[in-house]
């Protein structure tokens, strides 16, 4: 399987920025590449391996170890629902169910139109506003089953 359509110039540029030390900057290279492509396509990982001399097996090992990395395309917006203790105690499960129902996806899935990817996260450190979620880099607190769908809806437009 080849994903030929993927332009490799951006990853070449990202890797070049770390020419002083590829090895210990592998995670940073992968993070920047994922920001660029939205996920980590196979051809990009191969290109990183070719340029840095880091074996593809090690790269794959790192990618699959950290929950931040994904090998499949993600939606335009990422929704991270907090699964922390305070959120758990304050009823995040119902909020999560409401989002799942609204987007018609389960955890880890992306909507058919590639607008949203739904994830849960261990804790985003805003426990005082529990239950909480993050849409991209923005925090939304004190969620209820009534408010959460409206927030998501705003991002659909």
């Amino acid at each position, binding site marked *: 399987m080849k994903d030929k359509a993927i332009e490799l110039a951006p990853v070449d540029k990202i890797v070049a920025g770390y020419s002083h030390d590829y*090895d*210990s*900057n*592998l*995670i*940073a290279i*992968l*993070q920047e590449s994922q920001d660029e492509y939205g996920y980590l396509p196979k051809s990009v990982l191969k290109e990183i391996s070719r340029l840095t001399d880091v074996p593809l097996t*090690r790269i794959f*090992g*790192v990618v699959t*170890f*950290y*929950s*931040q*990395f994904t090998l499949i395309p993600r939606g335009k917006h990422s929704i*991270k629902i907090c*699964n*922390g*203790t*305070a959120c*758990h*105690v*304050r009823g995040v499960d119902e909020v999560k169910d409401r989002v799942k129902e609204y987007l018609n996806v389960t955890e880890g899935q992306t909507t058919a139109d590639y607008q949203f990817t739904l994830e849960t*996260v*261990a*804790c*985003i*450190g*805003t*426990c*005082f*506003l*529990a239950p*909480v979620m*993050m849409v991209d*880099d*923005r*925090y*939304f*607190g*004190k969620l209820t089953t009534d408010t959460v769908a409206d927030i998501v809806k705003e991002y659909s437009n």
Partner: protein
Amino acid sequence: MLKRLKSHDDLIAMRKSGDKKLKQDKVKASICMTGCRALGAQEVYEEFGKQVKKQKLQDKVEVVETGCQGLCARAPVMTIDPPDAPSIFYGRVTVDIVPDIISNTILKGEVINKLCYASAGKKIPYLNDIPFYSRQNKIVLRNCGIIDPNSIEQYIEKKGYDAFAKALFEYDPEQIIREITKSGIRGRGGAGFPTGLKWGFCRKAKGDTKYLICNADEGDPGAFMDRAILEGDPHAVIEGMLIAARAIGSEKGFVYVRAEYPIAVSHLRNAIAQARKLNLLGNNILGSGFNFDLEIKMGAGAFVCGEETALIASIEGKRGMPRPRPPFPANSGLWNKPTNINNVETLANIPVIIAEGADWYKQLGTKNGSGTKIFALAGKVKNTGLVEVPMGTTLREIIFDIGGGIPGRRGFKAAQMGGPSGGCVPEEHLDLPIDYESVKEVGAIMGSGGLIVMDNDTSMVDISRYFMEFVQEESCGKCVPCRVGTRKMLDILTRITKGEGCKEDIEDLKEMAYVTQTASLCGLGQTAPNPVLSTIRYFMNEYEALIK
């Protein structure tokens, strides 16, 4: 514009020029622009800016963007400081009410009642009268919520980098370590290891290259003090690192931050850039010949990376898996060089200890733990937020006096301390003075300071299952006791919560907990059974009710 500081005198001169600015006759309107952003603080801040410009009030009002002001339950919050009157605290501020705040409170000094903190039907307008604030002792959070975290000038005006200059010009490295050891400070990240001792090990370790790491991989669900410190006062952490670097003899440091904390990363990045411009980071710092620089490393979402050997592997660009100790990082850590790792809160304490002295610091707290501890108060409690109190304060004071008690009619059931490595403390221990040892005796741990309050509505078996699910997902899989033990315990707990448990389950849980605790490779597995054991110890009736 930031000018390079060539000497200690330059730093003092910069602070003195700042002193003048502080005395200006403006009303200061400080808005929390970190955690409160989740409830619209950004919009409120922008509206203030717009109104001040429109009404041409630039000479009368100074709008300041601050870090966490602590009383997060009232978000978005702000403080108004008239030049010669007490601070007024407002909560649940909205864009619509900004013009009223300006015309009534800022210009006329009149309080808007509906924005004030209320307790038992009584409105309390002044910050220092609110029990949430008056009963705290802010040492580490001294600047948090007061200064603009993106302004190194404001940090320096508050005597910032003064302690570092003292450590650099008046103390030799051994003296710094003696002072820190004497202060009795212990690591705030969870394990509570004496900081001075740790620094001493690294100083004595053989090798020319030594590394210093700030562990900002705050992963415990329910803890958010490190996030607040980095967002609200990043220079305090940098200053603490500079002092630590001088003490152990390191020229290169790393801050390992969670990727889930974008505001913290941005404030820290800005703070490092400012410190470099002023020559507080880099070569020949303040003309002393001392070199130190910092680099940010972003985590990629793995709880186990809070463990120091796993964190080191992650900085090296590998899978974040722990390895057996010894060798300890102090002798062989990052790239096999001597490495010292401290937590954010620990490092933010360091400048205060150097500035005020170990004897002063030791007066705070108990014999097992000096200084203060920041608790992240959340769950079923009225005043959720950040609370800094001296060690030895009781849970009752934190939850009821400062936290305002439990909302609604349901009563207090337990306080979960220390996250997935900790335990649930029941009502009978509410009057226990909290320090490292006392908390351990009742089956929890101080941990990073997460404090989640649970009311009578919360099922303790469900909580125990919740934490087990968390550690099971986060177990890196390297050692069998943790990988299999957490899975088996989770299976049993899930069965019990579904009402399908059997009598033998409790004994099986206890046995597996013992094996996982004693045979796991790192702290994650060794402490993973704590929530199960503490709930069995105090809430056995709830297990029995589900098993019947």
